[in-house]
């Protein structure tokens, strides 16, 4: 039981890392990794939303869509669920903790367009996860995303001052670095 859930977690964090192995959520990975501080805020917000959205979309699927025989509507309803969760999170955070809201800023609504969030919701259904498994899978995906985003941000701060040839400056060398990282993460293959 405990071993099953830890395997699910390690699988989602390292072996099938959402960014470096499954190539989901690349837009915030490239877009919000210029500074370590903002990457931290983004990863906190994403962790919260991804876990919540993973559970909510599971609930919507198994208690609303399945009884009504509307499984084919899952993609569009998950998008709706994610948008609602993000909006709800933003409202709660703004009212309860203005400081956190200022730290997260524009990144909170941006999570709606993070494809890893929708990816986790759909993969939960494909892999026939139950409630707890959906919770752990969503959390693992979020931790994996956060880990890679924060490490990448620290590295890009260093790359910004490197003597990179002009054609490769900026996003190009970032892409090369992400590719090399993806290569290194293949070493985790077979762990689960």
């Amino acid at each position: 039981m405990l071993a099953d859930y830890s395997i699910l977690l390690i699988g989602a964090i390292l072996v099938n890392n959402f960014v470096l192995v499954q190539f989901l959520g690349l837009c915030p990975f490239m877009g919000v990794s210029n500074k370590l501080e903002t990457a931290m805020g983004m990863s906190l917000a994403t962790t919260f939303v991804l876990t919540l959205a993973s559970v909510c979309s599971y609930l919507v699927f198994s208690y609303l869509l399945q009884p009504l025989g509307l499984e084919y509507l899952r993609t569009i309803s998950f998008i709706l669920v994610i948008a609602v969760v993000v909006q709800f999170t933003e409202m709660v955070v703004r009212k309860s903790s203005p400081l956190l809201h200022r730290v997260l800023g524009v990144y909170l609504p941006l999570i709606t367009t993070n494809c890893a969030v929708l990816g986790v919701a759909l993969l939960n259904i494909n892999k026939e996860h139950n409630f707890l498994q959906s919770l752990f899978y969503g959390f693992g995906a979020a931790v994996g995303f956060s880990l890679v985003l924060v490490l990448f941000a620290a590295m890009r701060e260093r790359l910004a001052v490197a003597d990179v040839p002009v054609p490769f400056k900026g996003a190009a060398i970032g892409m090369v670095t992400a590719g090399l990282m993806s290569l290194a993460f293949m070493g985790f293959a077979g762990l689960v």
Partner: protein
Amino acid sequence: MALLRVTSPHAHGPMSTPKVMRQVLLATLPGVLVLTHFFGFGTLVNILWGGLLAVALESLALKLRGRSPGFYLKDCSALVTAVLLGIALPPYAPWWLVAVGIASAILLAKHLYGGLGYNPFNPAMVGYVVLLISFPVQMTAWAPPRGVGEVPGLLEALLACFAPASYDGVTQATPLDVLKQNNSLLIGDLWKDNPLFGRWGGAGWEWANIAFLAGGLWLLYRRIFTWHAPVAFLAALALMAALIYDGGSSASGGSPLFHLLSGATMFGAFFIVTDPVTSAVSVRGRLVYGALIGLLVYVIRVWGNYPDAVAFAVLIMNFAAPFIDHYTQPRTYGHKTGGTR
């Protein structure tokens, strides 16, 4: 009378990049000799052919960037990369395998980032991982050590490299492979039945590891690097092995001594983990960096798909090194916390 205005620093260290690189090259010598003794001339051919290519590609890249090749080639860093990759590659590798590896190392991992000092990933290990993922069959074909199989001569080694189609060498699983695939025999029986295993580790491998340890200790004595990262790496690897080892059942993963003296452990500890450019910089950072590499090496060796994991573990921790540095900045005198945060 000329009044010269001299700015600090007034005291010069005797160390310079070319000197450090030459001493690293010298320190690989015992390991290379032992590898040549046990596995034949394959490693030497790898190193010579790789070195030639590395110098050529380095001058090409320097020319493209408008630098003077004469000055930058003198620091020997391209040669060091070629030697490290040549040691890591299996002996009797075909010429194109070495060429692809060297090209990835010198062009992709080094000059795309701006040359020596800017590369975030260890060039030799990038070359190795690119090859391991692209050509797994050639990369896992190790020759049997002396005493287990025939050791080819110099002519055969050249033939294997430059005319791979006409050479049919004997290859065999490495001890780490055998241990990974073993799921029925007790460790003691495996040791008795299989001539691939020596006294502590693999036959031949244990002596190569001891030779690299000797070279590394000499570098440590010459103060080329500090002890923190290699010792943390070896300690974490041995600790993990000691925790999991249950005295010799088929699922025990090998004893601590086996892990310390097998595969690329000592070579990695003193020649790869200590790379001053790609490792963490602060003292505490180096301890964390080394220990995490040791942990990852054990995890991937025992539970992952690949038999050895030094290259993967080093690349993953290269990625994490800037982050480790950010959170382990030493405290400056007069401040309560480290760094500028």
